[in-house]
């Protein structure tokens, strides 16, 4: 005879509707977890191998001479990347001058003025999304046919390079600037308008300062993309290993990625080492820009 308590327990077991956990589930769960860890590990190990390999290879060729000497095609020991470093810095400044007003202006128009029901505003939006993922080499062709030759005929100059890179990153700048402007809550605008400010005063005194951190971050990230680009500059014909600094907008130029490309095509292992060292210079520059962007984001980010 079983006690009433035991009988009650048995009844509960029979009427329960929650299925037992299948022991296979735990095994599948562990298997999948293993796959996921493996995927993340493979990705990070290969990317780490890439960094370490280049860093250890290039460290030997890293010296002040690399930054202060002009490139040499004959003697790797005295070859440097001075002209490429200056070219990259000039390109970055010119691209910023070109892209910031146009990019931020477009973003303000699209967020604050454009009526989304109008067909041309919708076309502009889809168009910007599309432009952001056109291959960079196609921008090189645009630069070659339109800026270097054809209508603008600027020849293979610093200005032509900056315009090409500017067109390349313009969609990215517009997209991030729009996101930053959208993050400013409508109540700020309403408050400003209610106090009698005009639409333009509201944008200039409230919306833009409120979104400045986001815009600055986006612009810096876009510029760091611009200075890492090689293909468009090769296509428009950046100079190979010039032994002079650009002395104006109409001067020929080269840039760090183009110099890396020129070094890495050489069969002499010493030039390959120079290429690694130049990659370190470029990566340090990019990391510095990224750090500034992250600092700006954390320091000036507005919490509404």
């Amino acid at each position: 005879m079983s006690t009433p308590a035991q009988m009650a327990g048995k009844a509960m077991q029979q009427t329960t509707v929650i299925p037992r956990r299948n022991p296979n589930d735990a095994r599948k769960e562990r298997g999948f977890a293993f796959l996921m860890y493996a995927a993340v590990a493979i990705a990070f190990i290969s990317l780490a191998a890439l960094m370490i390999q280049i860093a250890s290879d290039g460290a030997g060729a890293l010296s002040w001479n690399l930054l202060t000497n002009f490139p040499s095609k004959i003697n790797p020991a005295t070859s440097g990347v001075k002209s490429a470093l200056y070219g990259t810095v000039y390109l970055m400044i010119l691209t910023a001058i070109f892209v910031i007003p146009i990019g931020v202006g477009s973003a303000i128009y699209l967020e604050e003025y454009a009526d989304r029901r109008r067909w041309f505003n919708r076309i502009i939006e889809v168009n910007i999304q599309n432009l952001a993922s056109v291959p960079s080499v196609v921008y090189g062709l645009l630069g070659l046919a339109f800026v270097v030759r054809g209508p603008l005929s600027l020849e293979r100059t610093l200005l032509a390079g900056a315009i090409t890179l500017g067109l390349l990153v313009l969609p990215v700048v517009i997209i991030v600037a729009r996101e930053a402007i959208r993050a400013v809550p409508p109540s700020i605008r309403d408050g400003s308008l209610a106090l009698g400010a005009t639409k333009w005063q509201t944008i200039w005194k409230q919306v833009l300062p409120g979104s400045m951190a986001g815009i600055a971050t986006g612009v810096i990230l876009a510029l760091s993309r611009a200075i890492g680009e090689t293909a468009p500059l090769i296509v428009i014909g950046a100079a190979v290993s010039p032994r002079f600094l650009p002395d104006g907008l109409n001067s020929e130029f080269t840039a760090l990625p183009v110099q890396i490309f020129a070094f890495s095509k050489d069969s002499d292992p010493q030039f390959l080492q120079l290429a690694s060292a130049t990659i370190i210079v470029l990566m340090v520059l990019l990391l510095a820009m990224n750090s500034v962007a992250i600092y700006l984001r954390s320091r000036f980010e507005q919490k509404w």
Partner: protein
Amino acid sequence: MVAAGISVLTTILIVLSLAKETISFFSDVSIFDYLFGGKWTPQLAGDQASFGVVPLVTATLYITGIAMLVAVPLGLLAAIYLAEYAPTRVRKVVKPILEVLAGVPTIVFGFFALTFLTPEVLRPLFGTDVSQSNQLAGGLLVGLLVLPTIASIAEDALTSVPASLREGSFGLGASRLTTSLRVVLPAALSGVIAALVLGASRAIGETLVILLAAGSGQLLPGTVGSPTEPSGSMAAFIASTATGDAATGSIAYETIFAVGTTLFVICLTLNLISISLVNKYRQVYE
């Protein structure tokens, strides 16, 4: 506020500058021979030159295929891990690292393939007849290059699935695995596919990795599709041929624009697919 017009102007300029040279290209080479011709030897002189783009497109898609074999499983698993399994602390560290990695200049990847992957890994594995530029190295590195992009965008799509769906699934007694694969992944499917399409479009348009690691697009007969031989891609062909020296109006100059048009149309189609997918998945949850 005419500034916004610049973006439209850019597109028009791209189309015009591509179209002008492409049209004069097709006055020299028939459009039928270009689109369906099976022989790509633009480097040869005079009558020897043949401009059938099929092998070049095949080579591009072959390398993209290798790249996607690497990037899709790794990228998706990493995205599911970050979105569904990883503790917030891990995610806060890994996500920015992924975004920084997505911004590493592509020439760095190409250089790595040329100086390390091919001589130090592939040659010991597959023998010394692995060519200095080969499609396997190019494909693997392009895969590694688009991996962070795919992982990051797919993770965004998975994270935007409302928590109520997960809670409902857990409430019905489903395990974490079942919830991730049968509930969250299908709910975010259009966003995830958009990430893959975007990754593929980046891989197809990638220039420097392929130019350094896989070849310049001057195809030798019988090399396309054999992983240890060099080939190239449309983008690599453009960058290697257009070094700023080709004279305006020459056949070489016109050829790069014809190939550029082909590349632009392929990428545009992929982007439009991706955009329409993203819009579709936005409509579901917002």
